[in-house]
């Protein structure tokens, strides 16, 4: 009984805040609404038996990546651009294309042809599904190589960010 209530709450918050992200003019307000979306998605992850992913969504996405966004917004003092709904340029095309994309996604999710690969009835989840122990076990055995590659990628990103943002004392 609790799950439908929580799911409705989280999804309404996520969608309303997502609309605010793209419609607001003040960049800091957009960032804060994005943090709200991330937190409600984290709640949905808990409902989907993924507590570890939910925790690291808060820890990494909402707690570090968005703080970085806020830092850049505040340091650059970016002024808002023109309001979204004023006609001009290719905005109409953008809306239209997104609408087509949405219709396609609806087809994939809802129709019979789109859901061929999904199992007919709900498969019972093994115990410990989504727990950190299970994730650790798989991450270090089956997915070891992508894990190591990701660590090198993060190192490259750190070096790249430092080099790109450095002031050149010429």
């Amino acid at each position, binding site marked *: 009984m*609790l799950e439908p209530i929580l799911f409705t709450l989280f999804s309404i918050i996520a969608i309303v805040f997502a609309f605010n992200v793209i419609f607001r003019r*003040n960049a*800091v*307000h957009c960032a*804060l609404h994005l*943090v709200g979306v991330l937190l409600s998605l984290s709640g949905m992850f808990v409902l989907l038996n993924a*507590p*570890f992913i939910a*925790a*690291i969504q*808060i*820890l990494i996405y*909402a*707690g*570090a990546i968005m*703080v970085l966004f*806020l*830092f850049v917004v*505040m*340091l650059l003092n970016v002024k808002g651009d023109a309001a979204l709904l004023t006609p001009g340029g290719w905005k109409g095309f953008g809306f239209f294309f997104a609408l087509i994309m949405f219709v396609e996604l609806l087809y994939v999710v809802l129709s019979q042809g789109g859901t061929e690969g999904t199992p007919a009835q709900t498969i019972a989840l093994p115990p410990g599904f989504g*727990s*950190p122990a299970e994730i650790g076990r798989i991450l270090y055995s089956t997915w070891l190589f992508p894990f190591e590659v990701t660590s090198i990628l993060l190192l490259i990103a750190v070096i790249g960010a430092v080099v790109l943002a450095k002031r050149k004392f010429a």
Partner: protein
Amino acid sequence: MDLTFLIASAVKVLIVLGFVLLGVPLIVWMERKVIGHMQDRIGPQRVGPFGLLQTIADGIKLFFKEDIIPSGADRVVFIIAPALPVITAFLALAVVPFGDTVHIAGHAIPLQVTDVNIALLWILGTTSMGVYGIVLGGWASNSKYPLLGGLRSSAQMISYELAQGISLVSVIVFTGTLSLASIVQQQEHLWFILYPTLFLSFVIYLLCGIAETNRAPFDLAEAETELVAGFHTEFSSMKFALYFLAEYANMMVVSGIAISVFFGGWRGPFLPPVVWFLIKLSLFLFFYVWLRATFPRLRYDQLMAFGWKVLLPASLLNLVITALWVGLTG
């Protein structure tokens, strides 16, 4: 999800809430008295016996002060920002076990508001969300000094989060669990601080915890003699009181985690578990105050250098050694 569970949880939430809200005035009083005596003066002594009601009097004064919102400040963010560190502090306190399981009327009720199996990750997550209160408070004030203070303070907090997390990871490697209740359970025979590598973890965790809560000697970003008052310059009345409350609540969180992970939680002979927890908490808070009275503050670049160049490599090395030790001894 039966009725007993709901009622017990509601009572525990009220207990934790009440404890923090009533404990903070006591901590403030203790701080002023202890720093006073360490500085060879007496501290508050007139308001109430031994000056105990001084903090209440200050709270009443703050309540009646005029609540000024600077012109050009972002109203909504300005009002919400002080609440964020308080919310995250209370959320983190929800997983700290403050006593053993009590048996009331045939039901076993663990003395912990909730026991999630990812408790340590939850705590790291909520403390990283606490940065928002600082950075938004600094920005929403629409003024130079708060903005600089807020950015510095939040940069300090996110830098020390890394070493804090990695020092806790070495404990996780050792115990094999993320749940605080089971970490306290595993300290039945020997407290974790008595193991050599975990002692180093404790030292790193404590230093990072002090930096996270912006307490002396790491409090450059909010000290009164620097940057006016840092990120909380423009906040008056209850908003300032909320930031103040958040700082002490965060001190309680750091102490509570350190107690549960390194000092055996509520374990101790003779006395009931809750009393032991309170004793250990008081000792930690006294240590916080002692540090403030004793050390001069670190300059900002010294602070950041210490966090990135000393604590982070030390915690990584500690993690490697702990992992080797656990792996070799099985």
